């Protein structure tokens, strides 16, 4: 309490460990009344942990969290809320089938004579929305609102508790540019009312517009807190990246980069509203192409278009010179395109089935005859994949749900090798995967490329791109804004292109 009345939230000397991972070490952070503070850092830098500490979701192993003069003892979300900290998370928590007013008062509906007081609830909702400059009818269903409006309702709900500190965790990541502007206007309104805001985002243009100061984090530490006014994008990126890259075990150069083969897929002026506004690039046989971009930049949508899972609004996709857009996923699969989804747990694995069966789902034909499975062939296919990708499992029949994330991911990639795919579209294949498995996946991709397979590697962790890619392109603002070729792939340049203003 050095400056009573000014610091409304203070973290001092906080450390936090999850298993073997040191998420935070010795973090000091102080937020003053009415200040808008940007929180910057790469994935895994510790931003989310800081938010969880401030919101009372978790307590630090060492150090303390003080909110409005009261020191938190252990995790206590309710107490943190009473002390004035409200958080709006990235995932929306509204109930789409209920009205805006019902959502705003969720769980604390005003009552009269044992019934919900509709009139009062709607009047107060209207007032709350007006304060944010929103013109929405309180009786509308939330499900009918745009994502941006839902985001705003979420913010309005947090403000209903009269917070002194509002935490916004990537509030714009799922929004298009025009909608982002509306959210920022709302944040400006909040700032002028004297509420402090902690704003997490990867987009520097937004931060520059609303934040007074920025705290940059890296590897669980606060690097510095500086006023936004005289901070260049390049400086920010330099602080975010640090001198890493050298620490990460590099893929053996011998597995080697070589001349890429003929063009396998050509993407031409592909647009998908609101994320993609005309994307053009090509993928060659025998190369690993990195596709970088921050959360919400349209990476997933682009991969889905390439795999035929989604039809573009305009533009074309060609595979070996023949158009495949609009012909569907089955057609693309038949030609040799394979895709692994970003959300491995919900879209990738079939947890109850064995490793062996999860592997061969893409092509039963290789292990069966007239629809009858040949157990011996299934076993051989599974053992071969397990050996070649160093999958750690005692028995090929173990349900895949029992394996670690990295081993699951290898099998999910292995499916497409089993199917003989020539173009692999991998959406964040290293997310939630331990260091060793990461290195093994990099190595696997290099081997595949050497054998002539084309790989598109999507990652939001820019510093892994130069470890594995022959070429990297950056997606931002719905377009490809930068391209680099090995060995000159620089994390800083990619990151700058991905987060800077466009």
């Amino acid at each position, binding site marked *: 309490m050095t400056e009573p009345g000014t610091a409304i939230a203070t973290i001092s000397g906080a450390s936090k460990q999850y298993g073997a991972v040191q998420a935070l070490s010795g973090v000091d952070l102080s937020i003053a009344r009415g200040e808008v503070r940007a929180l910057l850092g790469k994935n895994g830098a510790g931003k989310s942990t800081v938010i969880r500490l401030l919101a009372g979701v978790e307590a630090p192993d060492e150090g303390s969290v003080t909110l409005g003069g009261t020191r938190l003892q252990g995790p206590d979300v309710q107490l943190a809320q009473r002390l004035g900290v409200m958080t709006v998370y990235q995932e929306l928590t509204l109930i789409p089938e209920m009205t805006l007013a019902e959502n705003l008062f969720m769980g604390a509906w005003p009552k009269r004579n044992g019934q919900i007081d509709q009139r009062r609830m709607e009047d107060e909702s209207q007032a709350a929305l007006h304060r944010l400059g929103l013109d929405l009818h309180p009786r509308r269903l939330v499900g009918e609102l745009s994502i941006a409006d839902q985001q705003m309702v979420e913010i309005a709900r947090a403000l209903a508790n009269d917070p002194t500190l509002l935490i916004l965790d990537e509030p714009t990541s799922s929004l298009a540019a025009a909608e982002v502007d509306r959210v920022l206007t709302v944040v400006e309104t909040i700032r002028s009312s004297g509420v402090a805001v902690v704003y997490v985002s990867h987009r520097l243009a937004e931060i520059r517009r609303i934040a007074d100061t920025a705290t940059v984090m890296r590897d669980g530490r606060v690097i510095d807190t500086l006023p936004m006014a005289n901070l260049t994008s390049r400086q920010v990126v330099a602080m975010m990246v640090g001198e890493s890259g050298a620490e990460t075990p590099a893929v053996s150069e011998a597995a080697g980069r070589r001349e890429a083969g003929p063009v396998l897929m050509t993407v031409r002026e592909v647009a998908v509203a609101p994320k993609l506004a005309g994307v053009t690039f090509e993928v060659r046989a025998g190369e690993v192409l990195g596709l970088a971009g921050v959360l919400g930049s349209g990476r997933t949508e682009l991969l889905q278009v390439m795999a035929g*899972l989604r039809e573009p609004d305009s533009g074309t996709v060609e595979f070996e010179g023949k158009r495949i857009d609009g012909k569907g*996923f089955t057609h693309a699969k038949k030609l040799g395109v394979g895709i692994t989804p970003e959300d491995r747990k919900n879209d990738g694995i*079939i947890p109850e089935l064995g490793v062996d069966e999860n592997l061969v*789902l893409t092509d039963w034909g290789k292990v069966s005859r007239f629809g009858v499975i040949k157990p011996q062939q299934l076993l051989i296919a599974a053992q071969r994949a397990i050996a070649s990708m160093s999958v750690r499992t005692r028995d090929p029949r173990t349900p895949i749900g029992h394996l670690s994330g990295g081993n699951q991911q290898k099998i999910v990639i292995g499916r497409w090798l089993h199917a003989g795919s020539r173009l692999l579209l991998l959406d964040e294949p290293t997310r939630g995967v331990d260091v060793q498995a990461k290195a093994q996946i990099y190595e696997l991709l290099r081997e595949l490329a050497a054998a002539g397979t084309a790989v598109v590697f999507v990652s939001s962790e820019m510093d892994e791109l130069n470890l594995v890619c022959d070429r990297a392109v950056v997606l931002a603002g719905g377009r490809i804004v930068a391209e680099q070729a090995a060995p000159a792939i620089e994390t800083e340049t990619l990151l700058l292109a991905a987060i800077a203003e466009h």
Partner: protein
Amino acid sequence: MSAVQTQSPPSRRSRFSGGVHLSTQQLNEAGLAAALILLIIVLSFTAENFATTANMWAILGDAALVGIVAWAGTLVIVAGEIDLSVGSAVAFWSVILAELDGRWSLPLWLAIVLTLVGGMLVGALGGWVRARFGVPSFIVTLGLYSALRGLAQFMTNSLPVPIETNSFLDTLGGKIGQVPTAAILMLVLFVIFAFISRRTTFGRSVFAVGGNARAAMLTGINVSRVRILIFAVSGLSAALLGVVFAARLASGSSSAAVGLEFSVIAAVVVGGTSLSGGRGSLLGTLLGVLFITVIGNGLVILGVNSYVQDVVRGGLIVGAVLINMLLLRRGGAESR
């Protein structure tokens, strides 16, 4: 019973270190088998005339009236779907068989073939509505449940439609030696379905779709095709049971098999198949069918009031599933 042995899925082995390797599924099946044996022993001592050979065959014969559709029903539930229409479908197709054979004077074999094909097509139609438009199968088959029985009653004025019997129908509705023919049919179908569920690409696709339909779709499995097929198979099974009913009663009856869908669902879930899909076994369902039939048979022999019978049956079904869930939770905790 070697098919029964291959049925127990080795793929759900949980990681008990050393000693016995039992998956939760196998644990459940073993428990259910033990409960069944215990039930039979208790009834042998308490109910007179229970432990006779004739009664044992009778139990198998009764079990067939659920089992013949419960095998397909297991696949339906493993796929994450539900089929509420089977009872009505059995009645409807028994009537159609009687009409085709009687009023239309078609040869019996042709009438049977048309009945079976019809059952399959109506099932496939329901599956298509489910797959193509995303209408929940609960709704689609609820509609069929109402429509098929209504249609059967409308066609017959709720009166039985007699069928001219012959030796084939007599045998189908009767016994071969001491063994009810329906029981033999049930066991043959059991072996076939156990094989389909473990060893065919179709069967494994059913598990994949039920376990995670989105992931299955992203591997290129034709999810719609799988869904249409399982309802076609379920419809075919119902039509087959309709033929068996007609043979047994020597008539087509619009009031046959009332409530069959719930007996099937009860047998399937008692057998350890998850209502949310992706997990289950046919051996479990076989044990579930026997469990439910033995309870019913015992209560009748004990002379329990028929309304009270329903109460007891309800309690035992919920109890069996509850124990199953508790076992599963324990198994899940240990493998973590």
